[in-house]
């Protein structure tokens, strides 16, 4: 297309004129939408509060200092709960996600129906936030760690299964073919031809999701599903800002450690 012949000889442009105009039009529409939306938001904002925001933030900031260090002793148990919710939730998710991924991958699914069912599980797990899962589970199971753990697990199944089934679809098929040629059964084909190829992905995804889950489980307490979020919610509601700052520091340290651990594990796998 972009090859142009004229009396001056051959020339070349990246795009045809028509395509270029269409791209400009696309930008024009996009920018107009943003300007329009900005106006809508602006009309519905009470600007007095926004102008007041820096002062309010500074006020809370001052009240947060100094953090109530003595409160730490009461936080150890909730932090431990939080880590357990994330870890056990991730383990449950991986145990369920691996078979789901094999059913969802085009090259390993026994039948299209299984694939559709597996994709449905993945989408429904991914489309609901873990906080909402927790909200529902607290109603069903009552408040506590169990609800939080299952919420984290349910949310993570989709995430893990999706990344895994994409990895299964991208494996080197010739290795599978070679195992098949020896007269191996389908189960052995998966065991020798596919599992070794996706094992690093399984481990990598599990660690990555665990890392995310540590952060997600810190807020589950807001809806009563256990963990440090419970203390955070309580402290904000009672305006105990020095406790809030202490909790934030503890969460920060926990996340920092989890990042460090997951980076180490990922490095060891690859």
């Amino acid at each position: 297309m972009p090859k142009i012949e004229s009396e001056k000889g051959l020339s070349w442009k990246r795009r045809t004129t028509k395509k270029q105009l269409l791209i400009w039009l696309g930008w024009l529409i996009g920018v107009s939408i943003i300007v329009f939306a900005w106006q809508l938001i602006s009309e519905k904002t009470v600007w007095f509060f926004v102008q007041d925001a820096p002062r309010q933030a500074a006020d809370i900031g001052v009240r947060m200092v100094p953090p109530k260090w003595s409160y730490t002793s009461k936080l150890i148990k909730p932090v431990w709960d939080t880590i357990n919710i994330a870890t056990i939730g991730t383990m449950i998710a991986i145990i369920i996600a691996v078979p789901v991924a094999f059913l969802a991958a085009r090259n390993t699914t026994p039948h299209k129906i299984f694939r559709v069912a597996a994709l449905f599980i993945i989408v429904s797990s991914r489309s609901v936030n873990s906080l909402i899962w927790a909200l529902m589970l607290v109603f069903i199971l009552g408040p506590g760690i169990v609800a939080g753990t299952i919420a984290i697990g349910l949310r993570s199944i989709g995430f893990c299964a999706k990344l895994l089934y994409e990895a299964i679809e991208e494996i080197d098929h010739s290795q599978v073919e070679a195992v098949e040629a020896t007269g191996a059964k389908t189960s052995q084909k998966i065991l020798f031809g596919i599992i070794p190829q996706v094992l690093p992905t399984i481990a990598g995804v599990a660690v990555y999701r665990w890392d995310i889950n540590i952060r997600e489980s810190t807020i589950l307490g807001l809806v009563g599903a256990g963990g440090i979020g419970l203390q955070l919610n309580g402290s904000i509601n009672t305006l105990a800002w020095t406790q809030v700052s202490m909790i934030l520091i503890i969460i920060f340290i926990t996340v920092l450690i989890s990042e460090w651990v997951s980076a180490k594990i990922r490095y060891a796998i690859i």
Partner: protein
Amino acid sequence: MLRLEKLTKQYKTGDQALIDVDLEIPKSQVIALIGPSGAGKSTLIRCINRLVEPTSGKVYLNDLELTSLSSRKLRKNRRRMGMIFQEYALVERLTVMENVLSGRLGYVGFWRSYFRKFPQDDIKEAYRLLDRVGLMDMVDKRADELSGGQRQRVGICRALIQNPDLLLIDEPTASLDPKTSRQIMRLINELCEERELAAIINIHDVQLAQMFSQRVVGLELGSVVYDGPPDGLTPDVLTKIYGEEDWSATIEKVEDDDEEII
């Protein structure tokens, strides 16, 4: 020992990969299958062990018709056909030993293979084969740590530990340098002779085909256009297989090489 009758394969895309191929291979004969890319060489050997399902025609292995077997019986009979691949197709993240033992998967059950509890005889045989191809020091190395030539030797061991009657070999030297190519081809030849194996070797390199086979079959557009001794590959024949080209240099070189080897 192996007989193909009117073997035909048409892919879903409409490509006619094989058209009425008849071929008979006696016991312990090594044949080279030559032909341009896309002539159907890979399809032909994959239709024999039904990694690719033939559209029509029959394949007989020792008078047993493979083409009509149930998948369970097919798996049993695949054990009698060892396969060696172009890019080695080793399971990269498993060790050399595990790769060789994977050739016994057709003989052991799922849980034994899961726990890697292969019978002692299999393990002994694996050591013997690895020793034979000169990889005794590499047993515990991971497959992706080996060089190309070493990997192909592992591939050969994996095929031989099946204790096959027939070897199906797909471009064994395509990823190897000329010297390693010759060594690998010589090794395959020796092993076929020791074990009285028949073999079909797909190969691009006409010289190698002539040096290391007792019979050459030329495939062009899915049909056999030449079937005869290696020294029958005259410029006319090569033109028929591959198309018009100056073939004199190829053939002369072969004669030089032959003298060196003798």
